[in-house]
């Protein structure tokens, strides 16, 4: 009997934990980068990124399909995929990390957050600390972040001929909307 109650209590706590939801996944996302260059500005947008935040162990994972970056100049998009990112060989850019701050999805507000983890672009891993702004709302979270990617850090080669056209540092902006993960 005692054991029975214990088991019931266990399931009840599990239940409440489930209803509070510890996993949040991104239902809407936008990654963009902009690079000012003398000849032609380089700009692209990607709305196909996937991401999950685990609010209990503070893990965050982001995965961006490289070939889904949309450029207005399609030849530039082709070069981006073929020559620079080699997206058939390295289809995704990922970030796997751990938030340094505790997140309480029950407490609404705006928080400055940071995460340490591994940023993988073009098949090259880099340990990075990324910072951002997290807006916790009712049953939703919004993450905004801005970070720089040094092309050399990820072995993305620029041919000498077009050196002037492409910045060596690319600024990436991201905004992600999270909601509780439902199976």
């Amino acid at each position: 009997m005692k054991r029975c109650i214990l088991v019931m209590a266990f399931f009840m706590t599990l239940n409440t934990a489930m209803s509070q939801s510890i996993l949040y996944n991104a239902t809407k996302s936008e990654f963009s980068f902009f690079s000012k260059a003398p000849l032609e500005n380089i700009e692209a947008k990607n709305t196909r990124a996937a991401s999950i935040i685990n609010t209990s162990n503070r893990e965050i994972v982001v995965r961006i399909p490289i070939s889904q970056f949309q450029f207005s100049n399609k030849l530039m998009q082709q070069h981006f995929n073929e020559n620079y990112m080699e997206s058939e060989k390295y289809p995704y850019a990922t970030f796997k990390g751990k938030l340094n701050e505790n997140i309480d999805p029950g407490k609404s507000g705006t928080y400055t957050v940071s995460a340490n983890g591994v940023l993988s672009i073009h098949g090259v891993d880099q340990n990075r600390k990324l910072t951002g702004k997290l807006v916790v709302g009712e049953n939703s979270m919004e993450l905004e972040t801005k970070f720089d990617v040094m092309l050399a850090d990820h072995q993305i080669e620029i041919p000498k001929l077009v050196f002037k056209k492409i910045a060596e540092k690319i600024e990436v902006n991201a905004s992600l909307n999270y909601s509780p993960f439902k199976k």
Partner: protein
Amino acid sequence: MKLMADSNEVFVRTATFKATRIINGHSVETVGKNNMDFIISHRFDRVNRGFEEFFGLDAATNRLGLEYGINDRLMLGIGRSSFQKTFDYFAKYKLIRQTSGASNVPVSVSLLGGYMIRTQNNSPQLSSYDRSNYTAQILIARKFSEAFSLQLSPTLIHRNRPDIFTDNKSVFATGIGGRMKLTKRTSINGEYNYVLPNQIDDSYTNNLSFSFDLETGGHVFQLLFTNSFGMTERQFITETNGSWGSGDIHFGFNISRTFSFGEKSKSNQ
């Protein structure tokens, strides 16, 4: 995290060829939405003209072309060749795109329809009907690897009035073309157009071309050798009379420059 593993992302295989032409003939590629390609092509005279004609460089034909992408699948193009003062108009539609990932499509297929008219004054003067020709092509290509792509192009060419009256008006041919990348930005292309037998005069030969492609930013340069002088389908598929064996080879080039008319990037940063 396991949730991320089961991907439903579909990857479209892009850049089967670098340009909208393999060499003379069309590739499966179209110009992207709101993008315009300006193509300048030259074919010099035969290299076996010798030193006096500077191996053919003294004389040349050219074609100027403008191509525009209505959307990412449909493009329209116009061109004007100095050879026979030919105007050409075409539409190309990307019907099927090669994909991998969640959905697996092995080939890309594009459809091409073209109309050409010669405007050179001939005597006797021919009617515009007699100077008109039509092209229909099914372009089937597969990008086997990052470096190697191959295309088959079954072709129908209809000439209202062939230059040799015993020729068939409608001619069936098939093109085969491929490209092999040497580096990320250079490749070697080959193209052969086979005309099915007993349709055209024996004095005509099949078109065979090789090119070296170099791409820099917004430009694609193709340096090429071919046995054909003209650049419209009627001319290079059904009316080529040069033979590689006897050195009737033309040096030439295509230069294409892409402009984009999409939403202008906001320079507000």
